[in-house]
């Protein structure tokens, strides 16, 4: 048919039904060659061998309630969850005075509400929520946790803070500081002013070139040299700042990646419309650049969250350190205490980190229209 001119319109046909692989097909794939057959059998054996033991230890043989370590020392006893339950206040508040725990709970509760507000897409008044979270909430949290004797809140020194409280304070401070500071550093690194560029590059490369523990040691030994003596001797503030600055350097590189991935036409169009530098960044460049690097930003947040465990090296009682010291309590001493304690710590970090990771996936899916 060398020539053709259609006379009748073609009709759109429905697509054929999707083809699901049959069980025979799956089996054929799993046993396609001797080697894949061996791998299949090996994997099944491994799972069958490992799962029952884990289930027995963590669930069936676990000790769920006990008032001391006695039941956990029984020969066949599994994980000692009673120990975790008993120590939970210590894991959460450290040595924060018992009758002041409500202050910490209030800070956690308000924080959780604000975070939920901010992280819900299309929530009403998100701008107000952001203002409360970034301006009012830190001050409120500081007053509540630190104390204000004038308001009837006795002072609680940071040497008494510990556990999840400290982990969350360090992580939240790091996250809240590192994103804006990272953005400023990233813009500085791309600035046309040589001095600005040099300062940004020097800061970023120094922080990235030094182990976090070194930054923490430097912060705790050097920061007091610059601060008036009567303000200095706090233990928590230097590592707090150290963690935030360290994370900012990594955040700066992440943000720079986003800035570089954005086509130049976007900034040209913004300039051609007469937008000034900061309006252009705020309204056109950053919303798009940050969106491009959400996975890497969340990755940095997760890294920061886990890195908070390093503050223990400068004498701050974070969550992991509390778990670590609680397992030495002679009342609970026993062979299952250490695995239980560390499993619980792992579970805690996993739940928090994967929560962040799930949220970032959700956000990406929502934004990829």
């Amino acid at each position, binding site marked *: 048919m060398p020539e053709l001119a259609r006379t009748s319109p073609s009709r759109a046909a429905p697509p054929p039904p999707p083809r699901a692989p049959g069980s025979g097909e799956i089996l054929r794939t799993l046993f396609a060659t001797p080697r894949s057959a061996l791998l299949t059998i090996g994997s099944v054996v491994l799972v069958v061998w490992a799962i029952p033991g884990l289930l027995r230890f963590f669930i069936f043989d676990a000790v769920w309630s006990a008032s001391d370590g006695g039941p956990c020392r029984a020969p066949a006893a599994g994980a000692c969850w009673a120990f975790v339950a008993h120590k939970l206040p210590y894991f959460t508040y450290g040595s924060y005075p018992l009758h002041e725990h409500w202050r910490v709970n209030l800070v956690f509760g308000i924080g959780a509400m604000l975070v939920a507000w901010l992280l819900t897409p299309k929530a009403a008044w998100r701008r107000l929520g952001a203002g409360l979270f970034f301006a009012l909430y830190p001050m409120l949290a500081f007053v509540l946790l630190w104390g204000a004797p004038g308001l009837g809140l006795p002072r609680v020194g940071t040497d008494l803070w510990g556990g999840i409280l400290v982990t969350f304070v360090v992580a939240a401070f790091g996250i809240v500081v590192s994103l804006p500071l990272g953005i400023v550093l990233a813009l500085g690194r791309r600035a046309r002013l040589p001095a600005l560029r040099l300062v940004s590059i020097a800061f970023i490369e120094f922080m990235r070139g030094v182990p976090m523990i070194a930054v923490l040691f430097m912060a705790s030994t050097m920061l007091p040299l610059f601060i008036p003596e009567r303000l200095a001797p706090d233990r928590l503030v230097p590592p707090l700042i150290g963690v935030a600055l360290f994370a900012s350097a990594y955040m700066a590189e992440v943000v720079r990646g986003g800035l570089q991935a954005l086509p130049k*036409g976007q900034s040209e169009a913004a*300039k*051609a419309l007469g*937008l000034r530098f900061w309006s252009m960044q705020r309204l056109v460049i950053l919303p798009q650049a940050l*969106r491009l690097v959400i996975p890497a930003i969340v990755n940095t947040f997760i890294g920061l969250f886990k890195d908070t465990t390093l503050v223990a090296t400068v004498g701050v009682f974070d969550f992991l350190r509390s778990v670590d010291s609680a397992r030495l309590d002679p009342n609970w001493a026993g062979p299952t205490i250490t695995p239980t304690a560390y499993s619980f710590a792992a579970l805690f970090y996993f739940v928090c980190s994967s929560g962040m990771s799930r949220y970032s996936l959700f956000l990406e899916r929502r934004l990829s229209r």
Partner: protein
Amino acid sequence: MADTSQRFADAGAVEIAGLNKWYGDFHVLRDIDLVVGRGERIVICGPSGSGKSTLIRCINGLEEHQQGRIVVDGIELTRDLAAIENVRRHVGMVFQHFNLFSHLTVLENCTLAPIHVRKLPKGEAEDLARQYLERVRIADQAHKYPAQLSGGEQQRVAIARALCMSPSIMLFDEPTSALDPEMVKEVLDTIIGLAEEGMTMLCVTHEMGFARQVANRVIFMDGGEIIEINRPDSFFSAPRHERTKLFLDRILR
């Protein structure tokens, strides 16, 4: 003291004198002299790398020039950021690749600069934007995102976005080069409509039919120089310069 804007009030919309520009060692614009009158429509053509895009990008300060004078609407472009920003408020630009802001809807693309540069209230900016979107016949798509539009539609939105700043001069940098052939006409018709209303415009394009229809003068550039400036009828029927003839032979066939 003479007010500078007063001094140039009767001058052309764009005055370029002795303009030279280098990219590193590469001499990309050489001794450009050009005066564009108010309401005048200029088409600039030439082979790729001839400096035509660079020339119009100098007019709103997207490119810095090293020598010479550029005066736009009575404001001289210097390194002074305030002067550059002032010029950009009065000069609209349309790009080859549209450069719409992909995170904003069509309407938000159009209201962004009016709200944040002209400081119009949001409602007023939206009315203005709807009016111009109506004009480029795309008002029904106001709540879509750029990625949901065809190339021709995106370019028309880009034109509306520029018009929302009420520019006195429009620059077009190959506005139809990135479009599928069947969308070229809708964009050109929009630009022709603007031309008929007396907008001052400089347009880099290879659409010779368009040049013939709307241009007051056609400029041919090659190797960073203006080779020929001519009225469109004589530019096409009797080009004076050898290189112009060669170029026209190649593109018109």
